[in-house]
């Protein structure tokens, strides 16, 4: 069985985000592999290392040329080969799921791992939409996975707690913090990764048409009061804070 892992390239969490012409401008921003996706790459590698019947682990990225960096990171972590569907156009997650589904079918994939929430577009839709296009079940927000033959079991978060589950592959899984601790690529593996296949695909062949338009973007910060209270006298500070919360902010009875 082959596993497909999605890798998205997003701004580093601490990087400053700027807007130009009503859109987020990533020019000059430090970009990294989305941390949520790294959990998926790591989990695929661990499944193979644990002796599950995993033939190939394939990383897929969709986006501009710079996404090669994200794929090289995944290759250096240990995936076998990479596919880059190159496009400069921004597509919504439901549209992008067409690519994921077509690649999964062409590559004979039995399991897709994708990050639970994107650190740029804050979307949770890519995994679920891909599952629907393939007619597969999905497990979201997983924090424990075990592959045994074609049975996948594990645990995931739901609205009011968490559930243990069992499902027969094929399936789509979305990953999150707590699932594992992603490995750092070692220098020898970074060197080896340069020789691994990184195939380029033309986005036009996937029949994509963006359905959601971004018509504006602004960095919006709520004006904060920034009232500082002297903490040297704890009793006085506590009394003053409570007074402000009750009478100025009116958030306490």
């Amino acid at each position, binding site marked *: 069985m082959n596993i497909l892992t999605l890798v998205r390239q997003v*701004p580093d969490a601490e990087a400053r985000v700027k807007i130009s012409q009503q859109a987020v401008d990533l020019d000059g921003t430090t970009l990294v592999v989305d941390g949520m996706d790294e959990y998926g790459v790591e989990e695929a590698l661990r499944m193979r290392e644990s002796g599950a019947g995993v033939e190939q682990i394939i990383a897929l990225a969709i986006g501009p040329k710079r996404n090669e960096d994200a794929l090289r990171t995944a290759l250096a972590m240990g995936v076998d080969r990479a596919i880059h569907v190159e496009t400069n156009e921004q597509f919504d997650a439901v549209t992008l799921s067409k690519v994921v589904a077509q690649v999964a079918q062409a590559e004979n994939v039995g399991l897709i791992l994708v990050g639970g929430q994107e650190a740029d577009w804050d979307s949770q839709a890519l995994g679920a939409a891909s599952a629907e296009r393939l007619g597969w079940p999905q497990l979201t927000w997983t924090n424990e996975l075990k592959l045994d033959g074609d049975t996948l079991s594990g645990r995931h978060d739901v609205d009011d707690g968490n559930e243990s589950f069992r*499902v027969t592959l094929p399936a789509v899984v979305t990953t999150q913090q707590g699932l594992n601790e992603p490995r750092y690529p070692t220098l020898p593996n970074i060197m080896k990764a340069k020789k691994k296949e990184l195939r380029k695909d033309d986005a036009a062949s996937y029949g994509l048409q963006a359905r959601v338009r971004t018509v*504006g973007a602004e960095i919006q910060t709520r004006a904060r009061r920034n009232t500082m209270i002297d903490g040297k006298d704890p009793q006085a500070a506590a009394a003053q804070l409570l007074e402000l919360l009750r009478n100025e902010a009116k958030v306490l009875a």
Partner: protein
Amino acid sequence: MILIVAEHAAGKLGKATLEMVTAARESGREGPITVLVLGQNVSAIATEAAAVADQVLVADLPQLATYNAETWAAAATQIAQEGEAHTVIIGGSRSGREYAPRVAVKLDAPYLEDVTSLKASGAALQGQRYTYLARVTETVEAEGPVVVVTVKPGSFAAATPAGAAGEQYDVELTLPAPRVEITGKSVEKSSRVALTEADVIVTGGRGVGSPENFSKYVEGLADALGAGVGATRAVVDAGWRPYAEQVGQTGKTVQPGAYIALGVSGAVQHLSGMGKSKNIIAINKDAEAPIFKVADYGIVGDINEIVPALIEASKR
């Protein structure tokens, strides 16, 4: 029609459903506001929904006793098609954002995810949403015979009755058999108010010092104020607190009336989960902590001294 899929738990209509009704009313989209109630033994929930909706469709079936992404997607799609809905509104809960994309694919509809506003703009439906770890507000729009939307919890006021209660109708559904087998379930039990419902939240970061201090100060203050308890990722990673309490990009998103951060530095990934709180109160001994930049009220001081004083003073 505008189709809203009800959120409910423990036999009660969720506040999210009332918020979705407000979103539908404010959207300027035409047609009756229709609430679809999926579940088993849901007649009381349907009656609650009827108070705010033009009509309520009820699917009271054993197969719907527990939530399943594929079943819910099939049910919502079927009703949207039969009722020729032009707008399908689903809650922005974990489950809502899990099955809504499936509905969008089934209906071949564009999907506006986790919006905080909703309005018709010509033929299009327009919404705002937070992106880039909640640092950016983007305006997005889509058009089509039908658009699927999820609404961010807490973004709209809860709807109150406007006019007579809507009629209730039972609906027939053809549902797929669930393929995911649930082998166990653990419900987060807490005597405290749930984080996403709490009007006041007390959160502790690494600056609190130890798991013992967390209990003493964070839980202590939360109990004194009747607040929910939150934790930062660092605290959860250190094993001091369960993941269920984590606030941030990889945890829960909250926007309470007051967010009291004890020993929290204010990393971007944390701010993305709580930055929309109406009032942010930071107590930290590090005057340089970034949390002070977003705080309404800040105290530079020692938690060991200030929090006991706060607990004591709040009892008066």
